[in-house]
């Protein structure tokens, strides 16, 4: 296949990838979109095989490795529980990063195969593109590994900080530029290896100071990085499919990070520099006064909901941890049988990744047209009888609106307190991720239900 013809096909697969993302604008078109994505990938891979003129005996190995990877991927995709989606996505990001690094190294060692000149005299532009691809790929890889470990709970979700961290990171970033310059001027492979090592280190250091609940931003950010890494390699390989995809994924991840940051009313740099709430946390817990709370049991909750005409459910990360989404749906089914209107309100940063709650509710067969975003539903709380908060905390805290001293002041929150009554399922009175007390616990119309989210929901269903 001629180079021009294959370039046309790469362009087609790039367009198909655009259509794949376009399909996600509504759930009806999304499945077709995913099909376009698969088609684009198939075209890209087929064209690559066809454009290679002389097949070496490596072909059989290429196919075997493709098959092994494919089987592993398919197996994971079928087995993974929906609650583990953040870990899965973080893990997948690390694979994109690592393959970008491997391709870059391979191109560096054998530039003839990629038409980049010969070893020791690689074209300058290619060398720069390669360095960018490899460095961003390495950062994506090690950063995603840390994100994965934190999400999986293998590593503590609390931020790890040390003195001079920001200065050290800044120095490392500068050293990347210096190393790239040295690499280009000397063509010495040593600088390439040091560049890779430093990039891996930056990835680790960038993610360790970021706390567990900031993971939605981190995952989106790493998503973006994996795109830029792919684009860097795309420039090296002069492949338009890779360049288009890299740009799409890069901007997609960047937009998601922006949405997540806005959902927390924090600047991107504030999240990245990490250590959120570390100082305030100790201050607020030391002068905590005892305040009375009303607590109830499943019967009280069932009584309240049975006499309501509309209920709004506010799910949060706690629901995912307790795997309570199916029990919740059963409770809602029972409520609906009693002619009670039930809707779901989802905060942009509920859960550990963008859209996390939506997927879990979809898994539990909750129709997506009953699930609403913050802006769509926030006015409805004033007219609702009961708000059922399950596993969410900070996103309902009225202090974000009223208390300028609060670390979460200015963050958009769900106006749960405007409901006639609020049911709060929680294991204890402990503060949420932001380390601050939730005034909602002590409100007159709040009933605390201290229990495991799943057990409590099941019991309420029995009492309905």
């Amino acid at each position, binding site marked *: 296949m001629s180079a021009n013809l294959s370039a046309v096909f790469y362009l087609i697969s790039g367009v198909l990838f655009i259509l794949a993302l376009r399909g996600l604008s509504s759930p009806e078109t999304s499945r077709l979109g995913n099909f376009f994505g698969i088609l684009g990938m198939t075209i890209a891979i087929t064209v690559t095989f066809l454009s290679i003129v002389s097949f070496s005996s490596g072909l059989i190995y290429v196919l075997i490795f493709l098959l092994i990877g494919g089987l592993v991927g398919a197996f994971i995709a079928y087995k993974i529980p929906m609650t583990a989606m953040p870990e899965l996505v973080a893990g997948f990001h690390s694979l994109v990063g690592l393959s970008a690094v491997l391709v870059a190294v391979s191109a560096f060692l054998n530039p003839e195969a990629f038409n980049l000149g010969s070893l020791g005299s690689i074209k300058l532009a290619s060398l720069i593109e390669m360095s960018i691809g490899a460095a961003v790929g390495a950062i994506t890889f090690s950063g995603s590994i840390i994100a994965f470990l934190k999400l999986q709970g293998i590593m503590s979700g609390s931020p790890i900080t040390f003195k001079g961290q920001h200065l050290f990171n800044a120095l490392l970033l500068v050293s990347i530029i210096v190393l790239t310059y040295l690499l280009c001027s000397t063509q010495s492979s040593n600088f390439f290896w040091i560049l890779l090592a430093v990039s891996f280190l930056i990835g680790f250091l960038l993610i360790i100071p970021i706390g567990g609940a900031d993971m939605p931003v981190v995952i989106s950010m790493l998503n973006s990085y994996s795109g830029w890494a792919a684009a860097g390699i795309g420039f090296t390989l002069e492949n338009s499919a890779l360049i288009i995809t890299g740009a799409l994924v890069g901007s997609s991840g960047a937009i998601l990070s922006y949405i997540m940051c806005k959902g927390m009313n924090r600047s991107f740099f504030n999240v990245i520099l990490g250590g959120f709430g570390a100082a305030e946390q100790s201050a607020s817990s030391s002068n905590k006064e005892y305040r009375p709370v009303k607590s109830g049991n499943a019967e009280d909750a069932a009584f309240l909901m049975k006499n309501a005409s509309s209920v709004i459910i506010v799910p949060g990360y706690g629901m995912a941890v307790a795997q309570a989404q199916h029990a919740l749906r059963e409770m809602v089914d029972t409520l609906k049988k009693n002619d009670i209107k039930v809707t779901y309100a989802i905060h942009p940063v509920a859960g550990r990744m963008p859209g996390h709650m939506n997927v879990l509710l979809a898994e539990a067969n909750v129709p997506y047209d009953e699930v609403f*975003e913050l802006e769509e539903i926030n006015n409805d709380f004033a007219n609702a009888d009961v708000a059922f908060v399950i596993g969410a905390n900070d996103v309902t805290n009225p202090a974000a609106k009223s208390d300028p001293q609060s670390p979460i002041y200015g963050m958009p929150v769900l106006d749960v307190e405007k409901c006639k009554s609020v049911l709060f399922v929680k294991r204890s009175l402990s503060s949420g991720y932001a380390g601050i007390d939730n005034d909602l616990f002590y409100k007159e119309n709040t009933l605390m239900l201290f229990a495991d989210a799943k057990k409590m929901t099941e019991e309420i269903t029995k009492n309905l």
Partner: protein
Amino acid sequence: MEIDPFIFRLSIFILSIFIGYYVVWSVTPSLHTPLMSVTNAISSVIIVGAIIAGLAGNSDNEFTISNILGFVAISLAAVNIFGGFLVTQRMLQMYKKKKKDK
């Protein structure tokens, strides 16, 4: 004076960023998780580079480090391609509308 092909690639890149910007803003927030898994899958089109790396070289049975790195990259990217598209498919199947009979 001839224009360097790099400029054309840069044009594709910049324009694609803008396409990405508008397309992604139109994605409904409830599908943000599938968006992430599908972007993951498509960014593994990096496999084309891995295939070139794996097949590069002569026809004797000796593989260079460059080839072997290519093989590893192929399997990593393949995990992502199959895993990413299939898990997206699985998620999208779950998004259903309200049934009338309820």
